[in-house]
């Protein structure tokens, strides 16, 4: 049976892992390659690297780091941040990334999703969406969450799927950094309306939050950063507890 995936996310800035709250107040959280190896050994199913400096400052993701990760890590990884062209993706895949994620560049030019999935296949194209619930509506945000758009989360996610996204990585800006749990209602709705996998992101603070993201939020995978970086939750403990809750995981 296909398992639910646990994905540590490493936000990268100037070659270091950082973690902030609600996208601001960044703290240093270590060397990304060392952390990646450690997580792979501890049972992480996959890794995501987001170059958060890239979108804001227009910098390209550090290829050198990608190459080192590909050399040393034996599980799949996704790279995102500042990717806006076929050439960007081609370079990252050639340096060993398994998948790439796009966010702002896809909102600005949705055809990019079609171009990338036609060229490289849907299986390596993750569309990341940062959204914030304002009253009843989930509004998509650009540029690391700093600019609101008129797009609705569910409409945009469906459009991304139709254009060839292989997965949706949904970060709830309301939940991110709060450690109060994932946005399970929105996740469940995404999972119901789309026929591609949904990765939950934003809000992990306890093991129970992951159980809920799978059981209530119907997510296919759950992503978190600080609870892993700051050793608040050990991946093995998390997976054992998921198994105890009858959630299929790789142990």
């Amino acid at each position, binding site marked *: 049976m296909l398992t639910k995936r646990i994905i540590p996310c490493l936000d990268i800035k100037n070659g270091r892992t950082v973690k902030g709250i609600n996208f601001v107040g960044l703290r240093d959280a270590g060397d990304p390659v060392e952390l990646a190896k450690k997580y792979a050994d501890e049972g992480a*199913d996959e890794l995501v690297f987001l170059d958060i400096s890239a979108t804001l400052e227009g910098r390209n993701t550090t290829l050198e780091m990608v190459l080192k990760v*590909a050399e040393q890590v034996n599980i799949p990884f996704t790279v995102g941040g500042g990717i806006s062209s076929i050439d960007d993706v081609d370079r990252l895949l050639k340096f060993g990334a398994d998948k790439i994620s796009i966010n702002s560049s896809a909102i600005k030019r949705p055809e990019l999703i079609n171009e990338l999935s036609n060229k490289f*296949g849907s299986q390596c194209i993750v569309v990341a969406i940062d959204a914030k619930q304002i009253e009843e509506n989930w509004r998509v945000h650009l540029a690391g969450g700093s600019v609101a758009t008129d797009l609705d989360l569910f409409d945009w996610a469906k459009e991304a799927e139709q254009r060839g996204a*292989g997965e949706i990585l949904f970060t709830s800006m309301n939940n991110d950094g709060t450690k109060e749990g994932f946005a399970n209602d929105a996740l469940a709705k995404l999972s119901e309306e789309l026929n591609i996998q949904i990765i939950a992101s934003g809000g992990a603070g306890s093991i129970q939050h992951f159980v809920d993201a799978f059981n209530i939020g119907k997510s296919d995978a759950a992503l978190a950063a600080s609870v892993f970086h700051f050793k608040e939750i050990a991946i093995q403990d998390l997976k054992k507890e998921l198994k105890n809750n009858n959630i299929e995981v790789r142990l």
Partner: protein
Amino acid sequence: MKLVIIDYGAGNIKSIQFAFKRLGVEAKLSNIPEEILAADKIIFPGVGEASNAMQKLKESGLDVLIPKLKQPVLGICLGMQLLCNHTEEGDTKGLGVFNTNIKRFSNKVKVPQIGWNTITNLKSMLFNGISDGEYMYLVHSYYAEICKETISVTNYNYNYSSALQKDNFYGVQFHPEKSSIVGEQVLKNFLEL
């Protein structure tokens, strides 16, 4: 040990090269027939769309060369699918080594399948030291039907072939290079065939 990874411009072959490097084996990337023929073992990788990949094989004449190889050949992911008779993806005729067809997953399940799934009913030296029910990493929208060459079964909506073997040809749908230590065992076993 001369190990060649067939480089025909289809997908992420760096990861496979790195996986062998972690096992202490330098793999050479090549699309030159003489180099491929001179290898002891051959990896036939592939990620992406089937008809494009087949077109690239034809352009370099590899579509004729590959089915005639006598050394152990390991097809990975799309590489395995292209070794079959036919694939629904782009209505593409395959190389016909494995006597089975490639179908698209139904929309009753999320497509593509992405993640770790179990391999069961293991029937090959390729799986020496690997227990039934171990997990492998898979990313695919199309699957190989069960046939007499099936050496591993995985379930996603249906039971399908997650690995195939005929004579010196081996094919795996999963990515051993991305499947942690269990995947590394498959690569080690292949090197020891």
